[in-house]
């Protein structure tokens, strides 16, 4: 089916973009599966709550294990909202319109869950509020919880504001809507009737949000990198950690957006709106941010590798040729260098190839965080003495793995719910861009 602008009517766009808003069998099965998986993971967490953090593989030396790698990954993935909506949006890239909401949904889901991920690493989670009550303004930990909360609220508002007009349309025009949902959309639409004054408020609020989003997003991942970089440990003691993390975050986030685009396009039949062109462009975005990330990787490894200070030498030896070498080179080559090479060619930026590349990049992105967090702790400055063997080398336990899977399930649940009950592609904005113009509200 090819897009024919002349034949497009407002009703056609509305039906194309909202026909998935209904409760069907597939949705129930998928949600049932997610809920069941989440329950299994929560059971694992209940064991940890009862028994203590000893059920995880973390010990005295490797105190930041998979949970922290997970945390960094979630903060990273949430950053994509800022790149797509704010940076590229403010530059005025028109092709982005159908992708912005997907990016914002991913940002909201990952930012919301990032805060929970850190709780999984807490022995006394009921003391979470102490971070605020007793937090020191000098500590990057307080900055981190502050900026993550702020970024989550900004992203949520940025997701909601462009949706107001959509919900006004949905509650009036979509006949297939389940009856009990209609009043919900009515409340959320805030009586929007496309008045110029209303549009003015919305566009001004969005503009403020987009501008605020850039420093907030840069802060969340820069501060997360400082949790590591403000120590003097080999592998963390780096002045490029901020941009290194931020560029790495764009890589993970762009890959996540491409994967989401592919599934929404297929399941919600959005081929007319998420076209091959969009995949091609997102492929170029992913290639660009990957190149920037590669540049920071070279800085991060070449400079200490050239100086080869004693502690750095031990750390780099383990990464390049030691115990972690297989994982390290798989991540660097399979998750960065090969994808960049493939994405230079147009044919690999078609939907299916770019999906496969993005999945590889996203998996590598998780393991990359694992490699940033764990190996450094296996080589402390003070020698490890008189400890049991399992204190020296970290290996995650099954319970720990299940607890680490839970946040992914939660993200999928949030993305599923948002995309199921709201148009994945901005309805009002698309209609306006297609020249259909002012919508008549009865």
């Amino acid at each position, binding site marked *: 089916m090819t897009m024919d602008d002349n034949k497009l009517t407002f009703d056609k766009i509305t039906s194309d973009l909202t026909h998935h808003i209904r409760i069907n069998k597939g949705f129930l099965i998928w949600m049932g599966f997610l809920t069941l998986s989440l329950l299994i993971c929560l059971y694992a967490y209940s064991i940890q709550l009862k028994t203590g953090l000893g059920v995880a593989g973390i010990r005295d030396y490797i105190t930041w294990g998979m949970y922290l790698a997970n945390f960094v990954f979630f903060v990273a993935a949430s950053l994509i909202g800022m790149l797509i909506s704010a940076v590229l949006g403010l530059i005025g890239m028109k092709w982005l319109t159908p992708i912005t909401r997907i990016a914002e949904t991913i940002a909201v889901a990952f930012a919301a869950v990032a805060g929970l991920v850190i709780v999984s690493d807490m022995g006394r989670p009921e003391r979470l509020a102490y971070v605020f009550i007793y937090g020191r*303004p000098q500590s990057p930990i307080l900055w981190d919880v502050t900026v993550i909360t702020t970024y989550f609220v900004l992203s949520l*508002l940025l997701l909601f*504001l462009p949706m*107001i007009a959509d919900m006004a349309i949905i509650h009036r025009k979509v006949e297939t809507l389940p009856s009990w949902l209609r009043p919900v959309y009515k409340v959320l639409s805030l*009586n929007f*009737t496309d*008045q110029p*004054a209303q549009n003015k408020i919305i566009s001004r609020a969005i503009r*403020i949000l987009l501008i605020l989003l850039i420093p907030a997003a840069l802060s969340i991942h820069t501060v997360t990198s400082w949790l590591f970089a403000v120590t003097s440990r080999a592998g963390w003691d780096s002045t490029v950690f901020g941009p290194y993390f931020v560029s790495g975050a764009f890589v993970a986030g762009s890959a996540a957006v491409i994967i989401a685009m592919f599934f929404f396009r297929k399941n919600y039949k959005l081929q007319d709106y998420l076209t091959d062109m969009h995949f091609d462009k997102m492929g170029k975005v992913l290639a660009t941010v990957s190149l920037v990330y590669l540049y920071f990787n070279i800085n991060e490894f070449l400079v200490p590798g050239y100086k080869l200070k004693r502690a750095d030498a031990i750390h780099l030896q383990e990464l390049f040729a030691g115990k972690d070498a297989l994982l390290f080179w798989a991540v660097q080559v399979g998750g960065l260098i090969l994808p960049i090479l493939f994405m230079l060619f147009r044919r690999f930026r078609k939907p299916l190839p770019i999906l496969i590349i993005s999945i590889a990049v996203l998996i590598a992105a998780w393991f990359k965080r694992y490699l940033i967090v764990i190996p450094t702790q296996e080589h402390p400055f003070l020698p490890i003495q*008189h400890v049991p063997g399992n204190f020296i080398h970290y290996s995650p336990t099954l319970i720990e793995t299940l607890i680490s899977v839970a946040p992914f399930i939660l993200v999928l649940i949030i993305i599923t719910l948002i995309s199921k009950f709201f148009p994945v592609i901005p309805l009002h904005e698309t209609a306006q861009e297609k020249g259909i113009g002012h919508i008549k509200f009865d």
Partner: protein
Amino acid sequence: MRFNTLFILILIFTAGTRTSAQTWVVPDEQKAVVAPFKFTPDMQKQGEQIYLKNCQACHGLMGKDNWARLTPPPGDLSREKAQIQRDGEIFYRITTGKTPMPEFRNILSEEDRWWVVAYLRTFNPKYVQPNPVAKAAFTGRIVTLAMQYNDQMKKIVVTASEQLKDGQKGPAAGVEVVLFVKRYFGKMQVGDIRTTNAAGLALFEFPADLPGNKDGNVALTAMVNDPKGIMKTTPADAAFGIGVPTEKPGLTETRAWWSHRGQAPVWILLTYTLSVVIVWGFILYIVYSILQIRKLSKG
């Protein structure tokens, strides 16, 4: 490869010889030293207090094997490896120390050190104390020290006086005096040992660059050097304003990165608070304008 093996062997060999060179040898005559008095339960109790204050941080609680993980390992002193030593050996090691163990020569008195030995021995059921050997005979000299600072000479004047046979007090000549200054851990000797002159005076120069408290005060102790214990002596304590005035506030007493919340640097407080207020101000403004959308509806 063969070269590497050879190299490693050489390394191991040299490391081995270095370790053996570093073993802590106690001279035989020191090993033979025995306590000048019979250990009593009272002394053992005192010794326990001294042990807990000065030794436990590294050696741990007796019999618990919870010594600090240092190299070389301090070890639990209730175990055979420590208890197999003679009293004189233990006493010598406490007295002289060997890095990383500090020397307690100027920190604990001789009596204190013997009390620690008495305490350590309570963990050895097989221990039988060798007969005490009293110190050399008391010669009858009873020496009292006093200390002053002479501003004109810029010197510390220690006056030794002793009881003469006729009951009168007079200057004590030919007495060896040693001067200490108190520091964070124990005492440090100032200058060399001096012998009092015919007037019973010993003069000490005080280094110009030693730090004092914020008023420049330093606490000094003058003692008679009497290793054989042939005199009855009274040391002199005094504090003079002759050090360099030094005001070093505690690490958490000033505003700093590492300090507690109440001592956060002002610029951090300002930056953090301002950023939060500005950003959340905008957020509240946006929430307010969203609520306005509802009111503007004409439908």
